[in-house]
């Protein structure tokens, strides 16, 4: 997908209309992060509190179960780790394994 600003001026829609719904997805805000959430799936009860509390829609779900974290967009705020009722999400500093 083209990067913002890469379009020619003739391709820019007129009248300030935006014709590509949900296109901010191409902005990889994961680069903002200093800590990343790591989920202990053995302890996870799939209550989806993290899913509903995430500001960046980063918790991928399938058929009512938690599958993974979208680290391309996670800004590392840590709300999921502090709100998890089972405390099975840990914030790990980036750059360490």
């Amino acid at each position, binding site marked *: 997908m083209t990067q*913002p600003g890469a*379009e020619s001026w003739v391709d*820019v*829609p007129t009248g*300030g209309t*935006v014709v*590509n*719904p*949900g*296109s*901010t*997805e*191409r*902005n*990889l*805000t994961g680069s*903002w*992060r200093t800590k990343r959430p790591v989920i202990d799936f053995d302890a996870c009860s*799939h*209550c*989806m*509190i993290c*899913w*509903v*509390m*995430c*500001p*960046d*829609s*980063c918790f991928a*779900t399938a*058929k*009512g*179960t938690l599958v993974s974290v*979208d680290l391309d*967009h996670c*800004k*590392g*705020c*840590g*709300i999921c*780790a*502090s*709100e998890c009722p089972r405390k099975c999400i840990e*914030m790990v500093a980036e750059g360490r394994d």
Partner: protein
Amino acid sequence: MTLKLRELSMLDDGFNPGHGLCAGCSESVIVRQVLTALENPPVVALATGCLEVSSTRFPDTAWKVPLIHSAFENAATSASGVEAAFKALVRKGRMADRPITFVVFGGDGATYDIGFQWLSGALERGHKFMYVCLNNEGYMNTGIQRSGATMLGAWTTTTPAGSVTPGKPQWRKDMTGIIAAHGIPYVAQAAVHHWKDLMTKVRKAEAADGPAFINVLAPCDRGWRYEPEDTMAISRLAVETALWPLYEVENGKYKLNGPRHKSLPIVDYLESQGRFRHLLRNGDPAVVEEIQGIVDLEWNRLREKCGLEPELSKNEAEAVTSAD
């Protein structure tokens, strides 16, 4: 009308990541909860504010639902125009009649201050739409200036705390009460941490026969000066200290939805945020007491409207027991 997170998590929330809101911002959480809870397809009008500048940076948009970007003041007016136009087109047979929910998102600047007259007009005309106020208690988008929603004693860049003034010198407006005075079918106050309460209120607002208003407290980690992971904890504290009671006004009838008792003193809330640090550090107990006094007064007024006995503050309760 059951709300189960596992079932809701299978729905599309209508709001994509990659927007520019700060890490730990509660506004996108509220938007996702509102859009997920809606049962009809929405048409959204958006007032200028943090949410608008961060989610609709041209040529991108985070929204996957029809959206109108309005100016700071006229989001309610845009929504009422769209609603009226939709009804007219249906009447003329140029559009199929189907249930659509018209939703407005506005910040506290757009709701309490700049768009107040326009919102009031739209409510008075009785358009069927739902207004959600994302109340972060200030103009955070332009750099944390005071608004009509900012609390007494709070530091902002236009009410700096120092030797002359202890932050903002005035109390905030009771906007939920002002909107309730319009006599519209549904008015509610909600908080972001209590997702079930918020989503239930969204469904009630959607089903209301006329305009509806939900005032949601939206903690702002940059402007309120706390760590991003504490967003939900701060919201919870605001409810537990009775600073932000959860209640609804359905056809004029008040009902408390949140805790029925005040469990914490206001100091706990003030301590949690950097914007009140000067009140506690410099030892300004007069302002803290003043805030506690207003909170107690408003809480008891609300309890009275809900048909409950007033709750005595700790000092008053001690005075009563010692008199016995």
